[in-house]
């Protein structure tokens, strides 16, 4: 196994990786920006290096600076975490060229899956169901209008390089489409440096269900069940659970098979996730592939008993997967909520100093937390500051445990989305496990929400 690994990331995911490395006797190297100098993960790593100024372009996205530190500290491998450079093919290639092991798939696989349009074509060729739409970039607004007319409204306008909902918009008619096309294209260009747009048919009442896979270098591909991530705000997930309460066992098996086929077709290695949209009659369609560890990986760990970071390290170290699909046991139910530093109604950011932090504790409660009392949440990075994960033998018990834990979670000094999360997880529709990706939007527009009054 590796002796020393650099973590090209920050906050809770850096802490999460350090924890597994410590257990396996691997030394860790943390990088941090000037804004993160006092962060917990910086103290917890074996070695830590300041890498630049607070904006990510001047620190966490500075590939040269990261490589310099990796060489200086003599690490054997780099774990990219999620976000930042984790799906940046240029970074992965550079790491490979420097003779350092990138803990993730090969750079060419990242590149192929980084374009939603290319991924769509690849998956179609692999026999994975895709949503009706175009497989070529759309040149301009007129062409977009023509295609949308053929497919039939409503349609989803999407940026090929998009992520986190950026560049994506649901449009109901030509007027809306004409208004939206250029704006989304420009936004995609400025955020991702690529304004390639395409259109897909809109799936009504969609559920977002995704399959976690692990794949070693010897052709073994293990689907580690699925996660339901339908509760989203601004197209970003806030509640995730495993297993999905919505899909049938038959759909589950089909979806796991499709994910394995997809991974096999592209020669995937390491941990990855294949995301699907599922319609009301349980037809599922490929959405995109995330070629990294995901924020919501803990729910899979809770029901499978696996440590996904450990599996990633082993695969990167050229070890065989030791468990087969037949041997993998699904145990109980897990739910994760993302705690964001933001206003619970407007979802506007809420940077500032956390004056008090008290975490509830009991059996079946897990925290992945980036902050402590006295931490300053800066405006430079993502607003997610903690994840609360609960596990119980049944979904009903997990829901009850979640409500109890959230009610006893104390964060003072900044706004958080905890009041919103509590309302969501207490809602009858969530309890019944039939919430779609539109739930938050509809719920907040409804008369029933006490929080929006």
């Amino acid at each position, binding site marked *: 196994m590796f002796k020393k690994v650099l973590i090209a990331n920050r906050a809770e995911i850096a802490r999460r990786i350090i924890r597994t490395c410590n257990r396996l006797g691997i030394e860790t190297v943390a990088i941090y920006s000037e804004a993160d100098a006092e962060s917990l993960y910086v103290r917890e790593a074996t070695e830590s290096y300041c890498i630049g100024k607070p904006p990510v372009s001047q620190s966490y996205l500075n590939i040269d600076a990261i490589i310099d530190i990796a060489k200086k500290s003599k690490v054997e491998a780099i774990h990219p975490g999620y976000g930042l450079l984790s799906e940046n093919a240029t970074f992965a290639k550079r790491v490979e060229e420097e003779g350092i092991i990138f803990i993730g798939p090969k750079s060419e696989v990242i590149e192929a899956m980084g374009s939603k349009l290319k991924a769509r074509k690849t998956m179609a060729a692999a026999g994975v169901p895709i949503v009706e739409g175009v497989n070529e970039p759309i040149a301009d607004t007129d062409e977009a209008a023509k295609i949308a007319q053929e497919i039939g409204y409503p349609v989803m306008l999407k940026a090929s390089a998009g992520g986190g909902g950026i560049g994506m918009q649901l449009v109901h008619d030509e007027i809306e489409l004409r208004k939206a096309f250029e704006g989304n294209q420009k936004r995609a260009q400025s955020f991702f440096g690529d304004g390639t747009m395409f259109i897909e048919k809109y799936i009504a009442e969609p559920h977002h269900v995704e399959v976690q896979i692990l794949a070693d270098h010897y052709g073994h591909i293990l689907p580690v069940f699925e996660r339901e991530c339908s509760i989203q705000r601004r197209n970003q997930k806030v509640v995730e659970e495993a297993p999905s309460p919505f899909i049938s066992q038959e759909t589950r098996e089909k979806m796991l098979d499709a994910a394995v086929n997809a991974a096999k077709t592209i020669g995937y290695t390491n941990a990855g996730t294949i995301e699907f949209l599922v319609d009301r009659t349980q037809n599922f369609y490929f959405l995109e592939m995330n070629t990294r560890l995901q924020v919501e990986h803990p729910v899979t760990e809770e029901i499978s008993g696996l440590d996904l970071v450990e599996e990633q390290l082993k695969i990167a170290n050229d070890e065989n997967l030791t468990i087969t699909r037949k041997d993998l046991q699904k145990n109980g139910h897990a739910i994760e909520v993302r705690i964001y530093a*933001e206003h619970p109604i407007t979802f506007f950011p809420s940077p500032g100093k956390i004056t008090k932090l008290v975490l509830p504790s009991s059996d079946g409660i897990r925290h992945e937390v980036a902050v402590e009392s006295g931490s300053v949440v800066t405006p430079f990075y993502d607003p997610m500051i903690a994840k609360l994960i609960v596990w119980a033998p049944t979904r009903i018990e997990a829901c009850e445990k979640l409500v109890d834990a959230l009610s006893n979670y104390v964060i003072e000094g900044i706004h958080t989305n905890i009041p919103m999360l509590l309302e969501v997880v207490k809602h009858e529709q969530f309890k019944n496990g039939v919430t779609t990706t539109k739930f938050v939007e509809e719920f907040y527009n409804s008369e029933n929400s006490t929080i929006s009054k």
Partner: protein
Amino acid sequence: MTMVKASMAGTVWKILVSEGDKVEAGQDVVILESMKMEIPIAAEETGTVKQVIAAEGDFINVDDDLVEIE
């Protein structure tokens, strides 16, 4: 004369007006980026832009001056 101020800390993502521009109350004049979210900042009153104080890329704190309108 009124001053459009930053409602939260962040980086100035885009300045939407120039000196001499006429602006309406409620019109967005600056877009801030905070925690990976774009936050539009609007003029509170109708008038003419006298001075653009912030520059794109600047880091600003809550209540920092952005645009002066008269």
